């Protein structure tokens, strides 16, 4: 093992070791631990993130070229770990209301899927990509169904599993065709032997886009998303909307940029169509939703569409825009799910208590929840000076620079549509008088969710005003990718 292998392996080992330790502790009485169990999850994520730090200034591959040790891996690994840590914080003592039996299994599954996600984004070899993909997916299927005595949860899990199996099959078949066409599993090898794209290669690329399209829920591969997001326990919906999506986007982008970047002309039309469809259909259907979780599910479809715009402008700053957009998207979406989680965790709450009406008057009775939700909604809608706006600004810039002005216009018009349903949440929280529901979300938030919401909200604001440094890091990350 060379030095680079050790550096590359350290965070993964740390995470695996943490997971195993937790597993062993769970065999004994875990309640006797000095800290609440959930904080162990945060600690493991933190330690792993710390070990990822050397990646920031490196641009190499480890394990004989299978794994990238570069800024791109660093950026997405941090998003994945941050998202997981926030998921832990939000779950603090709240799962009770979610009708989920608290057990260490869930923590382990979250950590395992985060590990899978990191492997995906770091992979520069299609086999490692697939292993990561499956590790992530299988854990998430179980997480979706973790509210065992709830029908919606089980239904979501089954749907997700069946459609997810399809997506894995598409991905795998695509890999096989790409391998057949280029003779290499390594991204660098694919790029080197791609030459004039053959029909087999193009079909392979198309199938892989399908596979990823399922995971990042692009239209028309999005049908599972609303049911799964609504059925899963809310903390897991947030995890899926953020961590799974970030991981899938990271891996997708690395594959397209460093594997198929040189033939981008042959797949950009397809990506453009998927982007426009996802934005438009996601936003239009979201208009009619009465459940916040379903609404957020459609909004996440629309945001996947926005992010795809960046794929069209690989060489024109589109990549950095995608990385940055996923970062702010994670912040604001987690905040939104976090508020829904807290609201629906009142003692009397039903499992599916996530109607928009359940937020009525929240802004006045619970200022912190109100502000967090308002900032998240406005940022998702792309209102300055919040992070979501700057993210869109970078994306639009990249699209216009790459000559896709019309797509930028479509995206801008879509933002206007989305304003309507995002603002409806604000309307309900502030404009519709006091709440009329018999139950109340906890008046004093426990430490975990409070900290998480404050961090996410300030993060969203901060990204809106001081984005420059992060965007530059994203630029470096993508530059290293294009050189591979």
């Amino acid at each position, binding site marked *: 093992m060379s030095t680079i292998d050790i550096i590359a392996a350290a965070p993964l080992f740390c995470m695996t070791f943490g997971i195993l330790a937790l597993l062993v502790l769970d065999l004994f009485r875990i309640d006797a631990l000095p800290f609440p169990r959930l904080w162990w999850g945060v600690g493991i994520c933190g330690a792993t993130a710390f070990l990822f730090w050397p990646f920031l200034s490196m641009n190499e591959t480890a394990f004989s070229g299978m794994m990238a040790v570069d800024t791109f891996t660093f950026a997405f690994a941090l998003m994945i770990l941050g998202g997981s840590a926030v998921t832990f914080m939000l779950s603090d003592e709240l799962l009770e209301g979610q009708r989920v039996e608290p057990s260490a299994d869930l923590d382990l599954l979250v950590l395992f899927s985060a590990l899978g996600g990191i492997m995906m984004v770091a992979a520069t070899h299609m086999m490692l990509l697939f292993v990561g993909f499956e590790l992530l997916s299988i854990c998430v299927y179980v997480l979706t169904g973790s509210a065992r005595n709830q029908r919606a949860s089980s239904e979501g899990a089954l749907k997700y599993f069946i459609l997810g199996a399809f997506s894995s099959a598409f991905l795998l078949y695509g890999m096989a065709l790409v391998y057949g066409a280029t003779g290499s599993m390594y991204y660098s090898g694919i790029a080197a032997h791609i030459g004039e794209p053959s029909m087999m290669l193009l079909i392979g690329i198309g199938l892989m886009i399908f596979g990823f399209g399922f995971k990042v829920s692009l239209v028309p591969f999005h049908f599972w998303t609303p049911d799964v997001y609504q059925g899963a326990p809310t903390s897991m919906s947030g995890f899926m909307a953020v961590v799974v999506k970030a991981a899938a986007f990271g891996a997708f982008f690395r594959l397209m940029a460093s594997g198929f970047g040189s033939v981008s002309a042959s797949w950009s039309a397809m990506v453009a169509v998927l982007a426009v469809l996802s934005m438009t259909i996601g936003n239009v259907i979201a208009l009619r939703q009465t459940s916040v979780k379903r609404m957020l599910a459609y909004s996440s479809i629309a945001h996947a569409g926005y992010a795809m715009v960046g794929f069209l402008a690989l060489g024109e700053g589109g990549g950095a825009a995608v990385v940055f957009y996923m970062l702010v998207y994670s912040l604001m979406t987690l905040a939104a799910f976090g508020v829904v989680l807290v609201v629906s965790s009142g003692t009397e709450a039903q499992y599916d208590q996530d109607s928009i009406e359940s937020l009525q008057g929240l802004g006045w009775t619970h200022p912190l929840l109100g502000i967090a939700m308002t900032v998240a909604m406005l940022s998702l809608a792309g*209102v300055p000076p919040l992070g979501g706006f*700057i993210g869109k600004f970078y994306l639009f810039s990249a699209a*216009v620079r790459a000559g896709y002005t019309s797509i930028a216009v479509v995206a801008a018009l879509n933002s206007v549509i989305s*304003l309507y349903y995002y603002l409806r949440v604000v*309307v309900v929280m502030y*404009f519709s008088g006091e709440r009329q529901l018999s139950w109340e979300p906890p008046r004093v938030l426990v430490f975990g969710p409070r900290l998480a919401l404050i961090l996410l909200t300030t993060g969203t604001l901060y990204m809106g005003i001081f984005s*420059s440094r992060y965007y530059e890091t994203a630029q470096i990350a993508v530059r290293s990718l294009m050189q591979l």
Partner: protein
Amino acid sequence: MEHLFNLTASGDVVLSLLVFLPLFGAITLFLLPEDNDSLARSVAMFFAGAAFLVSLTLLKLFEVGTPRMQFVEMMDWIPSLGVKYILGVDGLSIWLLILTTLLSLLVIFASTSIAQRLRSYLGCLLLLETGMLGSFVALDGITFYMFYELMLIPMYFLIGVWGGKRKIYAALKFFIYTALGSLLMLVAIVYLGLSHEQQFGELSFYLGDWVNLRFGAKEELLLFAAFALAFSIKIPLFPLHTWLPDAHVEAPTGGSVILAGVLLKLGIYGLIRFAMPIFPGAIEALAPVFVVLGVAGIVYGALVAWVQTDIKKLVAYSSVSHLGFCVLGLAALNMQGMQGSVLQMINHGISTGALFFLVGVLYDRKHTRLIADYGGLAQKVPMFAFVFMVFTLSSVGLPLTNGFVGEFLILLGGFQYNPVAGAVAVTGVVLGALYMLSLYRRVIFGSFNEERNGDLTDLNPREKLVFAPLLVLVFLIGVYPQPFLNRIEPSTRAVLEYVNQRNAVAPSVVAENPALRRTSVPQGPESRLEVVEN
């Protein structure tokens, strides 16, 4: 244009101080206890007052007679995309800054009628003030856009939380209408920034760099259309005005005052500041469209105002009419029109702001805004009647009030541009007199209903204090507009000359238009304007 946009940082931070003082106020309010209303109002007064003093200092230090940008601040903001934080003030914006700080202070001072959640109300007003001030001084496209959109959120809350019966509908309509325009403008802003990279090798969103850009005819028209749409919705230009009556009627008094007094001005300001210098060709080509829509707005607004039964709605439609004048003056593309347009923005802010305050006074006491519910108020509340009369006359444009100077200049410009347009606009003045005076007659004269309005009380000291500065301004501008026009003139001249010069290089209609030659001003109380002209 070099003197306008070839900037060097002045080293002052007074503009940043001005812009962010209200924001600090809003943050401070947020940290205060929720239910201590008098403390919240004092804190808000302190910050709004401080901002007003800073703006007065700015006015005092402002150098007259030069179109130069003053108190310039320059900083890199997002270096990787060439976004800079550039602020500066010139004759175009200096009075708008004063208007903004003054009206914000008055609205906060008059916030006693807000029964619920005063702290949040004041916080929204202060946040709004930061957005407005920032928009008036920002010279970088993205910085401008940030401030421009920042105004939306607090205004949305002002209407939605403290508004009337149909507040939710009105708030959403306001937000979505305005955002539709501004998001398309954002795409155009991005396009401009990238065009600068293509043409000059460096990303820039700085207005001074943008004026160097050259486009093909179709490209320029499309880009201009994106800017013009955003600003026309804001103005609001007929037929994009439908959000305005709803927003005005449902907004609380303070919201209406700020909306009419300042927010609408950003449309006109944006056209002069951004659209005209960047797209001189397009503005010249489309000037007839603007003139026609402006005149249509003048007449339409006046006619619709005439038949209103709700006082507030009447004043709202009168805004459509008055802003039509501003558009006409701007699109006439001559000195008188432009100058009148800029001055009329200030005038409209003062008189319509005051009229909304007056409607608020009545509404607070009787909780109705229907004209039919009042009548004969002159005997019961003489002070109110007097104040109402002054602002009615100012709105009508009676000589010796501020309204006259602005409308006169605009009509002058309009006649020079096209006598027909001018003539139609004059009917707008006549209609304006009709509907305002008929409103006054129906509310103040006639028979007094003792049973219904017997308990009406006259203006209290706080309200008198609110109206006092506005009354002074009405007569000051009406009798002695020189100090105002002196500061406005160099800047409007610079913009206009730049537009003409650009269009002269590319052969164009404007160059041969005799209307643009300086003409002497006819006799009358306005003859002193000649001094300004020369």
